[in-house]
Structure formats: C-alpha cells, structure tokens
C-alpha cells in the first residue's frame, strides 16, 4: 500500500499549478474568485490557452488529440483549476458528446466534430431533459420523424446550460413512437442555427441566467447526424451519464470555498464557537470524501471501470458544497450579504443536476447493495 502521489505526479501537479498561475488572464481569475458569471468569451479564451498547451481535453485518449492522462493526473489537473481560480471547462462538448462520438460515432463524425470540440471553435449544449422528463429521462417525448434523408424534430428540451452560446446541441429524441420506453430513442446532433431552433433563457432563483429552454419546431436534420444506430440512443445516453458522474465531488472547489469562509470570519472578526465547530465538521467530512475519491481514482487507475461508487462522490460532494454555502450564509449573520446568498441559492442545483441525489441513492441501492 502506497498512498502518496509519485514524484512524477507531484511534478505534474506543480507544472499545472505554475501554468495556471502564469497563463490564466487576471480578469477571468477575479470573476471566478468572486463567483461572478462568466461570458462565452471568458470560457473561449481560457480554452484556447489550454488548447495551445495541448491540455484542452484532459479526458481524451491520444489518438483524438488528448494528452492520454490516467485518472490520477486528470484529478490533479482539475484540482489545480479550483486552487488557481480557473473556470471549469464546459463539459458538454469535451466530456459528454465527444466520448459518445468516439465510442459510437462513425469516422466521418469523428473527423467532423472532434477537432472543433478540441479547439473550442464549436460550443456544445445538452438536449436531454424535457419539461415532462427529468429523472425519468426515458419518458421523453421529443420526436424525430424520418423523412427521406432527414429527420424532422419536434419537442422542447429544458435546463440547458450554455444553450445561448452553443453552436450544436445533442438531442435525445424518439424515432420509433411505438417501441418500449427505453427503445426507439436516438441520439442526434443538431446545428443550433437550423431554422426552427429557438432558445429562451430561464432565470434561476439566484438571479442567474445560465440555463435555457430550447424549442425544436420542425427542425430538419440530415440523417448523417444520427450517432450510432437508430434506436440505440438510450445505451449511448447511459454511457454519457456514467462519464458525467465521475469527478463531481469537487473537493478542491470546496477547499477554496472553506478558505473564503475562513477569510470572512477573520475579516469580520467573528469568534463563534458553534460556527467554528460546524465549519470543522464540514472540513472533516470533506477530508473523508477527498480520501474516498482517491480510493475510487486509485481503483480506476488500476484498470477498474468507473462504477456506481461515483454516486457516493456525487451525493456527499454536493451535500458538502451546499453545507459550505449554508455556513457562509449563516456566517454573514444579520449582514445578509448578497454574494453569499446568491451562491447559497445557486448551489441548491447541485443535488438536482447530473442525476438527482435521490436517483444516486437508487443507483447505490440497486447496483452496490443489490436490493
């Protein structure tokens, strides 16, 4: 048993730390630190800097232009993002649609889409949830009717982050209306500039405008935009969700928020024993989760596929994130600071997105406890 990072891994971490410190534009760093909303150009500029360094797609294998890192290096890389106040990388192209195209797409699709995801030239968004289909995703009702060499898509997709900036959306749509629920769903790539696609922003309780509803009205899409086989979409969707769930513990981000909280207490000269103990409890639980994440990563780097264990990271990680925002709110006391409140409201989303925490508990019960 050797629980330390190797000298190579430490050197790698230092290299990433140094790179972020010297290359991340100051205006972007300040926004992330303050929790201010980022613009498309902020994401793009940072993506471009990483692309030029060869680090834009940490999760990609080398054959598609990725660095070919193992799970430990990817983990260290993303942790350094949080420590250095770098913006997160938008996952919709890089970590969601790209792995599906690599695994199930044809050569033409790989050549058409992957290089522009890698370079950041094309932004993507996700067309999964619908007004009537949240956790029960397979109940989705968006339809794609085959007409000659095209699909005609009709339906509404919702809770879509970055749709206002996206060039493309990957859509789960029903191609076989009479098939059983999980069958007859297909995975289709849609150009956002196609006539009939409209984007409507949804303002969230924190005042944010991150998410949108996307209406698809008689949207005509060439059949070559189908990924894999018609009716295979559910399999690809599940594959994508497994990819999405890994790395959601957000340990370093939590450490940063705790540091900010400590700074707040120091600045405001707050000495409250109960608050100090509540913070310490969250800090301790975060340490326990960080170690749990390392155990999962070590298993993955030893060749084990990412499994249902990532549900633990999702549930506990988001609970801790929320607990910290709650502590920050309480630390503000009567001085109900707007940025603290905004983050508290915003972070309520974390236990809902990427498979709600209740869904994660179903996964743990079924796949780990086998009940």
């Amino acid at each position, binding site marked *: 048993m050797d629980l330390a990072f190797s000298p190579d891994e430490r050197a790698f971490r230092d290299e990433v730390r140094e790179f972020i410190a010297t290359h991340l534009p100051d205006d972007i760093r300040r926004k992330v630190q303050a929790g201010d909303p980022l613009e498309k150009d902020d994401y793009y500029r940072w993506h471009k800097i990483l692309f030029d360094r060869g680090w834009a797609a940490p999760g990609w294998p080398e054959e598609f232009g990725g660095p070919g890192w193992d799970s430990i290096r990817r983990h260290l890389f993303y942790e350094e993002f949080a420590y250095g106040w770098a913006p997160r990388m938008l996952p919709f192209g890089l970590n969601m649609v790209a792995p599906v195209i690599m695994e199930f797409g044809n050569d033409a699709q790989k050549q058409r889409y992957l290089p522009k995801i890698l370079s950041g030239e094309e932004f993507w968004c996700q067309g999964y949830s619908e007004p009537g289909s949240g956790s029960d995703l397979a109940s989705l009702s968006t339809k794609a009717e085959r007409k000659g060499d095209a699909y005609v898509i009709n339906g509404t997709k919702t809770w879509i982050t970055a749709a206002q900036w996206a060039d493309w959306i990957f859509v789960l749509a029903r191609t076989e209306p009479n098939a059983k629920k999980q069958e007859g769903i297909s995975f289709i790539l849609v150009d956002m500039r196609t006539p009939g696609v409209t984007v409507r922003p949804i303002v969230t309780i924190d005042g944010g405008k991150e998410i949108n509803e996307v209406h698809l009205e008689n949207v005509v899409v060439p059949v070559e935009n189908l990924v894999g086989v018609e009716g295979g979409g559910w399999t690809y969707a599940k594959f994508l969700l497994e990819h999405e769930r890994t790395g959601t513990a957000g340990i370093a981000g939590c450490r940063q928020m705790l540091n900010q909280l400590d700074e707040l207490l120091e600045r405001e000269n707050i000495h409250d*024993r109960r608050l100090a103990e509540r913070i*310490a409890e969250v*800090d301790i639980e975060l340490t326990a989760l960080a170690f749990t994440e390392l155990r999962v990563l070590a298993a993955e780097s030893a060749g084990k596929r990412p499994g249902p264990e990532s549900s633990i990271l999702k549930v506990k990680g988001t609970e801790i994130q929320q607990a910290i925002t709650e502590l920050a709110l309480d630390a503000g006391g009567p001085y109900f600071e707007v940025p603290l409140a905004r983050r508290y409201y915003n972070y309520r989303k974390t236990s809902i997105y990427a498979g709600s925490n209740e869904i994660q508990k179903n996964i743990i*019960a079924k796949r780990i*406890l086998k009940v």
Partner: protein
Amino acid sequence: MDFSLSPEQLLIKDSVARFAAEHGEGKHEDHWPTFAELGWLAIGAPDELGGFGGPIETLLVMEQFGRGLVVSPYVAQVVLAGTILKDAERSDLLEQLAEGKHRFAVAYEEPHARYDAASVDTAATKTADGWTLRGKKVRVLDATSAGTLIVSARTEDGVGLFAVPADAAKLSLEKYPSEDGYDVADVTLDGVSVGADALLGDAGDGLAILEKALDHATAALCAEALGLCSLMLEATVDYTKQRQQFGVALSSFQALQHRMAEMYIELELVRSMAYLAAMTLEDGADPAARKRGISAAKAQIAKSARFIGQQAIQLHGGIGMSEEYKVGHYFKRSTLVERLLGDRDYHLGRYVALRGAAVAEPVPV
C-alpha cells in the same frame, strides 16, 4: 498511489478473519497465547523483538476483530501500552508484552478530565530511591488482568509515565463493567512507592509519549469501528432482503433503500477515515498534524458509526431490540468505541483548536 494490500498484509487479514469466524463474539481471554504465537502481539514492535508491521497491519487486525465482535484487550495492550513501551525504549517490558507473558494497563484519565490526557493531578514525588505516587485514575482499560499499570503523573519536569506493579501496596482497583461488558476499573494510588527504574523515559516526556500512544490506540479503534459498521450494514441489507411484509421483501421499499444507501455512504467515509488515521501515523507526522488527522478521523467515525448503528437497529425493527440477536451487540460495542479515548465532541474540539486555516491539500500525502 496504490491501495492494494501486500501478500503479508492479506495473510494477517485472512488469519484474523478466520479466527473471528471460528471463535465468534467474545473476549477470548484464553486465546491470548495464540495471539502471541501468531505474532499478532508483536505488530508495531521493533524487529529485534520479532516485531513487524505498523498502523496498517493494526488496522487490518482491528477491522476483522470488529467484524467478528472479538472484544479482546488488543488495543489496550498491544497498541496503547505497546506504543508507550516502544517510545520509552523499554524493550525489556515490550518483549514480555509481545510474548504474551505479561499484561499492562494504561492508567491516564482522571475523574474530571473528560478524555484529556494533559489534565493530570496525580503527583509523583521524588524520594531517595524512587518515586511516590498519589492520585486517582478512572476507566482504566483491561486493568484487572494487568500485572503492571502504566500511570501518568505530574513531576517537577512535567508529566512522567511510571510502571507500577498492579499488586503494589497502597494501590487499589475498583472494577466495574462498561456497558458492553468490557473490563474497566478505577485506580487509586494512595502514596504508592516505586523504584527509580519505574519511570518510563524521562520525567518530562510522559505526556508526549502518552498522547502519541493514545493516537495510535484511537486509530485502532477507528479500524474496529470500520469492522463493526461494515457488518451492521451487511446484516441490515440481508435482513431486509429476507423479511417479508405486505407480501414483499422489506428491501423493495424505497424509503428503506435510500436509508441503506445513506448507511453505505457513511460506511465509505468510515473506511476512508480509518485508513487516513493509519496513514497519518505511518507518515510519522509532527504531533500537531498527527493529532489533527486522528481527531478528524475519530470525530467523523463517531458521527457516521452512530448513524449506521441507529439505522441498523431501526431497519431491523423489533428484532433489533432483542438481546438475543447479534445486531444489538454490534450496536452496543460501536456505541462504546465511539466514545472510548475521546468522543465526537472531544475530538471535534481538539480539531478546532488545531485547525487554523483550511489546509491547502486534499489529504496529507
């Protein structure tokens, strides 16, 4: 990074698991010589005494003891007393311990100390040919079977540790059972005389040696808690799969599935913290970092183990309340382990005092 066990470590784990499966719940006092033969009493001892391994090996032993509900005085002897004797460089005494020939009990806690080892009123006064000890110690683990008590007492130089024969004149033991039947005693020293060689280490080093040994023992308890919790969850999952109500297995109800998923998440935190505690000791971290790591582990485990234990009883329903059924025994042992050598509040307090700013690294590796 590699979490896999070496062949030697797997061997220890398997042999302890076999013992626990064969002999089941109990103290197994008569098997103490077997433990010595198998080398379990020499874990952590120096090589020249036939010792091997360290905190990870201790974890493996204690986890299996927990799973089997083997309530042996292993922690009090091998880990607590053993670490003191090793750090005080008393290989003469440590050898006797490792061979299973002689038993020790560490008498450190005082009536109003509430787990704090630094709160020492017991006094050691220097005499012409040794020391005189006067004071009271409470809840001494494994005291009645010990031939020697290791007593902390205040000297002119700080706190010293003294090896006192259990049958010394003016020393009295008041034995009573703890809530799970474990052997504890209060000890009164009413002017007990000991020789100069009774002092372990230097007269001012005792507290540092004691606190380190207590941290080792606390880590071992964390590992025991891991074993207890893992078994309580397994028993609960099995039971809800078998128990039929409303014509279906209890495990088919989502309210219970989610509860068990929550128990599983807590169990994984317990597992992580048990390993983190052992690792903190393996690293030989400085005392502040060591205390912080151990207190984090114990505070988290105390919280998670209480949740797992309470839910194990709840999900078993009436049978969980029955003294005849095993899950209640695990719950009681777990409740005791939670509080032994410092409960959640104590360790949280110690952690807060040592915390300072949040650490920049996810774990101390």
